[in-house]
């Protein structure tokens, strides 16, 4: 009788242990958010910049940390110190724009082209900053 009882509890215990381990592992090795797996807000670079330069607080309440698909004309392309590609989308301002740091390099992007980039909005410096961007497949 006792033997049988023991046999019943052991697999359950092991299962529970695995469950706890799996949850711990999942939260520790939690996958990174991917802009492609989330629904995005579509907006023109000109409008996004206007929203931020007019009322930063309000714009943050609408866009901060959201996935934004931003469409605009490429004003400048450069590389940051980590070798990541930075795409500046032009706005009504002569100097500042929507600065998008790309997840991967996209050699097909050229200054003057119009493109739609999708990433997470970090907020406003003197540019609107979008991080971990990808070229949107459905512009």
């Amino acid at each position, binding site marked *: 009788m006792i033997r049988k009882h023991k046999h019943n509890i052991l697999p359950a215990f092991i299962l529970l242990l695995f469950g706890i381990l799996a949850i711990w592992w999942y939260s520790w090795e939690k996958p990174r958010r991917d802009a492609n797996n989330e629904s995005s807000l579509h907006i023109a670079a000109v409008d996004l910049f206007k929203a931020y330069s007019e009322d930063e607080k309000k714009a943050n309440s609408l866009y901060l940390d959201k996935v934004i698909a931003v469409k605009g004309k490429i004003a400048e392309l450069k590389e940051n110190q*980590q070798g990541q590609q930075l795409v500046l989308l032009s706005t009504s301002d002569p100097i500042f724009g929507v600065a998008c740091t790309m997840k991967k390099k996209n050699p097909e992007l050229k200054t003057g082209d119009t493109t739609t980039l999708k990433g997470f909005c*970090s907020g406003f410096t003197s540019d609107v900053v979008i*991080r971990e961007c990808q070229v949107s497949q459905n512009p």
Partner: protein
Amino acid sequence: MIRFFLAAILLLSLQSLSAQDIYFTRTGQIDFHAGTSVEDVDAVNNEVTSMVNIKTGDVVFNVLIKSFHFKRALMEEHFNENYLESSKIPKSTFNGKITNLSAINFSKEGNYTATVEGDFTLHGVARKITLPATVTISKEGIRGVSHYSIKPQDYDIAIPSLVADKIAKEISITIDCRYEPRK
């Protein structure tokens, strides 16, 4: 007519002079190490905007908290949600001045030591700080590097006792900005 042209030329040259005084970057880098021997807690931000006016010595930094990138998504989440509360306070700023401006010859290539004093705001708490910096003048422009360390409690950043042994008492920060003349 000639006077008008002379005035126009003078105005234009003045404008170009003042524009050349301002050096700018939107890809400045700030990284920090907050780990202990128990665990590495490192993050880097490559989306720092900074401006230096070489005539007046004014220095400005705008740093977005959500642009700090950690190796582990979980750490990034804790950093943003629990410690820096970046949804409420998305930005950290520095507004200061180079106090030994005359010691730096911006038209001569080389390394210079600069002292930058100003107001640093992090997590909504403003403090006066002094940054020691190395300024390198080269053909590419101006590079400014500074090492600084902060204590989380000085900026009302609460570290729960449960993780206290995993997070350094002093967070070491490195600022590395490569400025170009602003067009």
